[in-house]
Structures are given as structure tokens and as C-alpha cells.
């Protein structure tokens, strides 16, 4: 059985979450690229896969290719998944340093995908540095996943691919809305070690999938989580489980207002393998927050609302 077949049989990524209805799917089997891409330039085509299906093929020299807009709702958690592979020479299968180089170079030389958000007028919403994207770093088919929450005012999302000098292949794309009971995304790092969903390590940090199959996030000194929404009138519980690389390994929480202005920081907790939690009510004006992490290896980080 090929890796691709195995991925398809396991529902792309083997999510532990409850099944959800897709709001958008694209198998690339029947429709022509014009049907789902904003524009089709020479070389963009569909090709047959080893199991007889079809996939989207983007040529090496193509700068970007963008899929047509798909409607989404702000402050809803979605998960984008698709299969992809690249023909570039350095991939994680042939070079296990490629993963670290992706992180340290911010993926700027690697094939990539990213989400673009648009309001109801069709204007793009700028939310830079939010981690709405990732690198494609496998020569074999791999299930890329990205959990995301569209920013306020969002009416639609587009997906943009950049082959970056190597042919890029895309298949079985879908977006589903998910609800795993947490306010933050990717709380258990269950999508595997190449799918960060906005978690950004520092220094030598990265996602690792352990031999037992569990993926953990090694933060490095100063890694950050994706932003997650918090409201000033609500009581939240923030729970973390994991190890500390040093005795002093700890988590800090930074609050931001709706304009993205930093409101303040607070010490949150020192994670343990048994799990630690803190309850809090965010300060006035809080719109969202994120973790800053110092020398921890997290297995789980969950934010839940205790009051409506």
C-alpha cells in the first residue's frame, strides 16, 4: 500500500476529532483547473496519480497559484487539509535537517501554501505574522493540515500555493469546521510534526513526533503559540501538560487588544507531565492572546471558557 493510499484510507490525517461536515472539498479528479483556480497559466495541469486518480500539478517556474475564494465565517475554527508532495531534492525523507532549516529560514526558499482572507467587499484582510500557512517539505504524499480561525470581518478565504522552483502536486483538499472544545487551535499537536498551525518555536525548538506516535512541541527559548480569542468578561481555564527542559521552564501569556496592541504579560504556569491549569479573567480591552514559552516540551495546551 502506498503512503498516499494509506493517507486516503485514514481520512487524510487520522484526526482524533469528531467527524465534521466539509464546507469545501476538491478532489481534482473531475474538474479542470479553471474551475477552482483563479487563473491558469501554462504548465498548470492535472496529472494522474499512482492510484489512478488525478491531482493538481504546478510547474516549478510558477510563482503562485491561487484557488478561488471559499466562504468562511469569522471566529470559527476550521481545518484545511490536503495531500501534497514536491519534486525538490531536499525533503524530510532525504534530509532530516530540512525540517530545522525550514524553521530557521522561515520557509522562504521552500514550496509553500498560505491562506488569504477577504472581507465581504473582496478586500484582502492583512493579518501578517499569524502563521496562516506552511511549507511543503515532502517528496512523498503527506497530509498537510492547518487549523485556523478567520479574522474578524472575513467573508472568504483563498488558498495560495508557491512551488518555489520545484514541481508541486496537490490533491484531496478540504476545509471542515471543527469543534474540539478548545478555544485555541491545534491544542494536542495531533496533525503531525510538519503541521504547526501557527505554533512557532524559537532557536532549536520544533515539533517532534515521538516513537509512540504522539507529537509534541519543543518551544525553544521564546517560542510562541498561535493567537487565540479571549474576552474580558469571561473566565477561562488554561491547561498545559508537558516537560520542562530546565527547572525554570515556563509559560507566559501576552494579551492584545482588537488593534493588535500588546496590553501586558503575565506568568502563566510551569508545565508538568501531570498537567497544570490556571483560571483567569482577561483584562479590559483584551481581544486575543498568545503564549510565549521558555524551554518547555508541550504535549497539550488547551484554553476553555468556564463562563459564557
Amino acid at each position: 500500500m502506498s503512503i498516499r493510499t494509506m493517507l486516503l484510507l485514514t481520512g487524510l490525517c487520522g484526526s482524533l476529532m469528531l467527524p465534521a461536515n466539509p464546507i469545501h472539498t476538491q478532489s481534482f479528479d473531475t474538474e479542470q483547473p479553471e474551475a477552482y483556480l483563479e487563473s491558469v497559466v501554462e504548465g498548470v495541469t492535472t496529472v494522474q496519480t499512482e492510484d489512478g486518480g488525478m491531482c493538481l500539478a504546478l510547474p516549478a517556474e510558477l510563482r503562485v497559484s491561487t484557488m478561488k475564494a471559499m466562504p468562511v465565517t469569522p471566529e470559527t475554527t476550521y481545518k484545511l487539509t490536503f495531500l501534497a508532495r514536491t519534486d525538490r531534492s531536499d525533503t524530510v525523507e532525504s534530509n532530516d535537517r530540512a525540517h530545522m532549516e525550514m524553521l530557521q529560514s522561515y520557509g522562504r526558499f521552500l514550496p509553500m501554501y498560505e491562506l488569504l482572507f477577504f472581507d465581504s467587499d473582496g478586500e484582502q484582510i492583512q493579518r501578517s505574522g499569524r502563521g496562516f500557512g506552511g511549507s511543503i517539505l515532502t517528496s512523498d504524499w503527506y497530509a498537510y493540515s492547518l487549523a485556523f480561525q478567520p479574522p474578524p470581518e472575513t467573508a472568504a478565504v483563498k488558498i495560495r500555493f508557491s512551488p518555489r522552483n520545484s514541481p508541486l502536486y496537490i490533491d484531496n483538499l478540504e476545509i471542515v469546521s471543527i469543534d474540539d472544545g478548545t478555544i485555541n487551535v491545534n491544542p494536542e499537536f495531533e496533525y503531525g510534526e510538519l503541521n504547526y498551525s501557527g505554533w512557532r518555536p524559537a532557536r532549536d525548538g520544533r515539533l517532534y513526533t515521538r516513537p509512540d506516535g504522539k507529537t509534541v512541541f519543543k518551544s525553544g527559548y521564546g517560542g510562541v503559540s498561535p493567537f487565540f480569542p479571549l474576552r474580558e468578561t469571561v473566565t477561562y481555564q488554561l491547561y498545559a501538560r508537558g516537560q520542562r527542559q530546565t527547572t525554570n521552564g515556563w509559560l507566559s501569556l501576552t494579551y492584545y487588544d482588537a488593534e493588535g496592541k500588546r496590553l501586558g504579560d503575565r506568568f502563566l504556569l510551569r508545565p508538568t507531565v501531570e498537567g497544570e491549569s490556571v483560571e483567569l479573567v482577561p483584562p479590559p480591552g483584551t481581544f486575543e492572546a498568545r503564549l510565549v514559552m521558555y524551554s518547555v516540551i508541550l504535549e497539550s495546551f488547551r484554553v476553555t471558557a468556564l463562563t459564557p
Partner: protein
Amino acid sequence: MRNCLFLWTLPLCVMLAAGADPALVAEYEVRPLTQYQLSFEADAETRASWEVRILDGDGRLPHSGCFKEPWQTIQPDRQEYRQWFYSPAEGVKLQLLCTSEEAQPAFNNVRLDEVDSGNLVINGDFAGGLNNYSGWRDRAGATLVEEKGRTVLRIVPGGYALTDPIPVMPGAVYAFPPGALRRGQMMVYDQTMLRIDDLPPYHHINNTTFTMPAEAAYVRMLFFIKWPHLESSISLTNVGLMHVEGEAAATAAPSATEQEIVLAADADMIEERAARELQHWLYKIGGRKLPVLAKPSAADNVKLYVGTTWAERYPEDLDFLGESDGYAVRRDGKAIYIFGTKPAGVLFGAIRFLEENTDIIWARPHEEFGTVYSTQDGVEFAVSDFRSRPAFPARAFSFPGGLPMTDTLFWMSRLGLNTSVPMKDGFNRDMGGHTIMNGSFFSYIFKVHPFAELKESHPEFFPMIDGKRMIKEHWLNPCFSNPEVVKTLIAGLRIALAEAPEKLDYLSCFQADTWRVCSCDSCMTPIQLPDGSILAPKSPYSEEDSRFFSTRMFMMMNEAADVLMKEYPDLKLVTHAYIYSAEPPAVAVHPALKPQYAAYSTRTLRYPILDGDANGAWGDIWEKRYRTWLERHEGKGLSVFSYYNLNGFSAVADAAASDFRELAKAGGFLAHTESCPDVEFPNNYTGNGDPYSYIWDVDAMERWVLARLMWDPSQEPQELREYYMQRSFREAAEPMMKFHALVRASWLDPKIDKLVNCHISQRDLFTTFIVEPGNEERARTLLVEAEKAAVHPVSKQLVQRILSGFDRLSARLNREAIPWVPESTHDWNAATSTHWEKAIAFTGFGKVDDWRVFDRAPAEHQTEVRTMCDRENLYFRIVAWDDAVDKVVVAPYSATEQFPNGDRVEIVLTDGSKHWYFTIGPNGNRYDARGWEQSWESDWQVETTSDKGSWTAMAAIPMAALDIEPGTTQLQARFGRVYRLRGDEREESSLAGASIYNRHESFWTTLLIGKEEQ
């Protein structure tokens, strides 16, 4: 108990005339250093008192022969009296005297018996009953009480009890008798009765026997409550010490007659230390042991009168000294008076007197090589007319807790510091140290409501953080605006003041070390200021609105000060002006409060605080704050909390002098810096495990200058340094001055754009101010020159310690010279070539964390890297030990570049801007990259071999590819290895024990490219 050895006695019953002068009751001959019991019966109609005097062979009264304590009273309703004591080393004749304002009592059955109970501690079982403090002259908060039918000595928190000096023999073996209390601290005194050492407490706890140190002539045992929060009192019941074996003869020096020291019989123990310091050092320097007498002898000799008792004739000096712990030294013919208005002033004056009349310097605290002086035949006192008072009432170094401090305590007192030290870290009541009480806001609140009770009864006392009360015992500030919090804080402070067994010099009450503050509705309510304006909060976080929360905190402390001042008008309340409260509040600060301004931590220590422009990105915030505090608290006792404790060579005292001068102009109260003790004790605080003494090796002079500036900041630091170097290094002073001039020039060079705060690393300090300015070679040459020039053995040791500190710092830059090996051109790819033995070797790889935490444990599969060079190439040979070489994981071999995705060794090089990555697998697969450029080719050559138990990679990397010239450049390097590729079997290791992707400066090794031999 044996019968007494007296040779003759007065009649057993004498009637004495009434009067205030003591009358002689009885005389006995005594043997020196012998334990006696004096007993008598007395019939008295009114209160009287007795005293014991033991005279020397010349009829003089040694200070240690005086036994006159307030408890030695004769009562009408009591008949029998007993007293125990040791006779002094010079003692030959004992006199029992009685003083009565009215009719003298009738004495009967007066006996003097030699005691040989085996217990060397006088009255260690308190058998004398209540009100018999024989053997326990010095104590505070320690009282004899009845407990379960027996007399015990009860000590309360903050109190202490000291045994009287117990004669011992150096080198002899001693033990604690079965059942004796072992919790005390033992302090060691030499034959001049100067405290010279403390035995570590574990001697008492773990060892049944122990050997008395060389130079020990007396010991005293100290008892106190080490953990006041755990014990409300302790009761001493059985204090003992016994001699086991060893008969080392005590060599008492003959007593000099041409000079003497006079110390009042009732002198304070600090004044006694002053006299003992004089006796000790004049003996060490001049070879004459001056007697310390309680009364001046009749001899026509030079007399050093030590203590405030003798100062009445100098009222103008007393007026000048006022409430300070300053000193005056005056001469009147052959009489020299050393005095202050406080005992500490007497001690500081005696030390200065020694310094002025000899060449002694206490260069650093270290017991073995801290003090430099010349010996001579007697000491003349040419300088005996001077006085001085300190600029600040409080002058303090502070220290990490729990460390051996004795030598550092001695040093501080000799430098005029009156640092308060928790008793568990060292006893310095005899050294002029301030008596204070320290605590956070909550620690005082917990005196009223312990934490367990408070969290249930008053959760509103705890801070509201993000909408929730944060209830923890430590590291929190209370709600500042709750009126009940303020009342409880005041009640807690009252309890603390009432509990204090001694008069406090000041009480410290401060915020917790955190930005966290309460943001409850009450705290967030806008504050109406005295001028009618409104101060509204801008944020619930003190980081975002320091002024608002500083105002809240000082409003609370103002109220506490206002209430307490009415009850304790002399009370000084030290609090912090730190973190958010460094920002001056919008309200006036109560004059009883002594805020400690801490410009932490973004100010640079290179320039004065008021030179605000020097503070880089943070601008002049610290200048503005300091200026405001100085202006608004002028004359009310502003304090500073400083961090001039650097871990390397600097000229930090220059900035300190200016900072202290400004404080002095404003009538400052406390000048402070953080510091560390000079001990061979691992410094776990910084994590490098070095002894703390290593810091003193390189920074002792600056600390000495800082201490001197705390006394008088008007002095020029550079002149103080020159004085220090002349006295400490003597013949080596000139090269040492040149060495320091190099350091100082870089330190003050404005072109070196470097912010230095207390967190700067050793490496950074050394690199920035010595290596990068190009001074390293010259500086080391000067130190070597100084080492050769030094003659005095202690001077030589001081220089050697500086030199070894310099070399240690240099070595810590992880710089290694790559040898130039001409044969490497041809032999680099022969793994067994003997020329590889000429290469520099790196071993000791540590495990790198992945999803597992290894804490840099040694790698299970070790690796050795060797490197050498010729004109063209850098050569590396990396041996990867592997018990199962046949199981290495390799990608299929490729003659062209192929990443060795499996077992491999890795080299990362950088010149500071560009990075190069090289990796080799066991089968010769290789891969190189520049930055993220995979297509870059270095044209390197690679060879691999394998053997039973290891595989070896060799590489020749052209220097041209790295744009470096032989002999002129250095590179930073990292070396790594991956053992197996996946699963639990995978082990990643590196020379630094950290990932090669962790680019922190401490993980790099500097490779100095070898030079071709001419």
C-alpha cells in the same frame, strides 16, 4: 569538684564599710585558663552587687579578668551565691569585690573551687538556676526560665546567646558530650581573643569528634533560631563541649609593657572587637602583644584608650560625630583615644588607626591571601589625630543566602560597612553590623493572619490578577487599596517591632519581586491627588502604568508610616523603589520611609545614572527617575539599591562614585550594592559552578573601592585604586596600574557601544573590554610582569589569582588554536597518521534534547574531533565510536553530493555573519551548504574509514571557500553527531551538549587559525 587551690584567703567573714566604691572581700591565687566556681553566702539588708577581678602578675587588670554583670546582685531575701568562670591567660590573683550604696552585706563561707567536670562550657546545664548567667555574658532575647522543673535558657526569634570564651588547644580533638545540644555555631578566637573563623555547622551535627583548627585559642558557641518562621523559641538545656585528646601547648606571647590597650570592663562587644583587632594586628605586624586592660596601668607608656567611655574630653568631636558610626582618634601626650558615639564607630576608628600607622590593607576577604602587611619591630603611632564620619548611615553589600560568610563579614567591618546579615548566614553583632528586620508586605501581614488562615478568612487581601484573586504564599503583593490590608500590615509591623529582641537600626518592608499588582475595582479607581487632580489608571498592569501602581503602593506605605511614627518616633522604614515603584509616585512619600531606588536592570553600569543619554535604547528614564527621587526626597533619607557586582574586569566604581555623590548631596540613608562572599563555595546562582572567590579574583579592587566610596563618595575612585594597588601589590603595583589603565580606557571608551548591567556574562565583559579592543595580549603581558615583580607572598598570590582569573576568562571564550601541521597536506586522509596527534582534539560530547530531556548528559556514543591546518585547508578528523558499526544507518552512497540521512557527523562554521554547514556519513556521503544555499560548493574532500568499534570521517575544507586567510582570522565552530536516525535509538549529541541550531554564544568554540612557523 575538687577543693579549691587557694593559697591564702581573707577571713571567711568580713564586714565592709558602706560606699559606692567596690570593696575587697577576698583574694585568691589562681592558675591561668582554669575553670572555677566562686561561692559565698551573703546577708544583705539592701541590694548590693559583686564583681570578680583577676589580675595579672604585674597587678594589672586584664579586660578578660573582669566579671561584672547586671545579674551579679545580692538580694536581702537570698543567702547563697555561685559564679563560674575561666581565669584569663595572664591571671594569677582573683579579687572578689562588693559594691553597695548603703550597708555592705556580710560575706560568709567564701570559697573558690577549681572545677573539673569534663564539660568545658561554663554553666552549660544552667544548674545555677534562674538569674545566674555565669558563662553567658553576651546575649539578646535570651532569658533563663523554668521549664518542666528545670532551668533552661530560652531564646526568641532574632535573639541569640553566646557562651563565654572557652580555652582550647589548637590541633587537639574535642567532642560534644552525649546528650549535649549540637545545634550551635562555633566561633574560633586566637590568642589575642580576636574571632578569626567559624567552624561549619556540620561539625556540630555530623561529627562526634572534631579537631580544633590551628591558631585556635578559644571558642564560643552561638545559639539562635535559624528558621524563625518554624520555631517561636528554642530552649537550651544541656550545652557541652569536652576535650578528647591532644595536648598542644598554647604559646601565649609575652605581654608588652611599652604600650597597652585600655578597654572599659563594661565595654560593648563591638568595642571589645576594636581592642582585639588592635591587639591582633599590632602583634602580627610589630611582634608585641599589647595587653588589653580594663584599667590603665601605672606604667609611663603609650596607652590606647579604646571606647566611648574615654571620649568625654572631646565634646567637639562627639558633637561632630553625632548619631553616626564615625570615629575620632586624638592624642594627648602618650595617651591616644580611639572613640565614636556608637560602638561601631570605635571599631571603624581602630581599623583606620591601624591602616594609618602601618602599611596594612585588607585587599579582599579571603582568609588565606586577603591581607597584606609588613612585619617590623614594634609599631609607632605617628598618625593619631584625625576623625571621619560616613556620608550614609547605612552602608551595605548584600549576598546570596546560605553561604559561609565569616571572612567576608570580617572584611566588611574592616572596610567600614555596617551590613546587616541574617544570623543564619553569619554573626556580626560584634562587628558593627546593623540590626534590622526584613520582610515583604505579606510577611508582616502573615504575622497577624498566617497564610493558611488568611486565604480562608480574607481572600480579598490577595491581588486580583486578570479578574481572579491569586492566592499564593510567596512572591505576591497584597491589594494596596483595601483599608483592612493597611491596618493588618500595620498590626504586623507592630508585632515585628515588639518581638525584636534588640533595638532595630531600621525595619525593611518591601514589595514582592514581581510586576504583578492587584487590579481589583478598588485599586483601579482613579486616585484624587492632594492638588485636586485625578490620577487615572491606564492599564491593570504595572508594566504599562508604573506611576499609578507606584502611587498606590506608596499611599499604603505612607499610611503605615504615619501610624507607626506616632508610636516609634525613631523608626526608619526602608522600602523599595523598584520595578514599578522605581517610578516616583504622584504623592509625596512620608519622611520616615527610606525608599531604595533600584535602577534595575536596563541602566548601564559604565556611566552614572544621571548620565542618562548613555542608557541606549531606554533613554534617560533612569536619570529622570533618580533626579526626581533625589529632589523630592532630599533630606529624608533616599537610599539606593545597586548592582555593581560584576563578574569580570571593569572600572564600575567610577559610575558608583557619581551615583553615591548625588545620593550624599540629597542626604541619603543607605548606599548598597549586591555582592557575593569570598569563599571557595560553588556559585550555583549563575550555574557555572565556579567558587565565588573567582569573582573576587578579578573584581576585588572594585569592591574595595566601592566600600570606601560608601563611607566617603567624595573620594576619587582612581586615587583609591592607586592606593589599593600600592598597598596590595607593592613592587608589582606599576604593571598592575598599567593593566587596570587598559581595562578602564576600554570601559570608559564611548566608541564601545555596550550596555553593561548586572546580568552581563563573563564572556561578554571580557570580550567587549579586553579582547575586542585588542588589549588581551598586552594585558596578559602586564599581569605576567606583575607576577614576576611581586615580592610579598600575599601580593604575589593576589596577582597570581588575577592572572589565573584572566586566563580562565580567556579560556572560557572556547578559543582553541588550530595547529599548523605542514604534513597535514599529504597525511590528512590517513586516519591513523601520527600527524593527527599534533591536531587539537575536542571530546566530551553531550546529549541534545529532542522530544526527550537529557540535561546535557554525556552522550552514550562518544565522538572525538581533531583539527589542524596548512596553508590551504582546514582538516578535520572525527571519530564516531559505535559498538555496532555494521548497524549504522546510511543513505545509498552517491559519488556526488548526497545528504547522509542517517548516522553522521556535522560541522558548523561561522565568521559571525556567514554560516557553513558540513556533514559526512559513514559511507562517505557528504553534504555542504552556505547559509540556506544548498547549491553552494566548497570543493571539499572527504574520506571515511571504519573499524571495529568506530567509524571515522576526514575532511579537507579549503579556506579559500570560507574567504579566510591563514593566520589572520578566527572562526566559530560547532560539532555535532547523529547516531541512528529514528526512534528511541536515535541519539543526537554535540560538543556543547546543545543543538547545533541553538546559536547562543556560549555554545560555540572559537578556532584560531594556526600560523605558519617562520
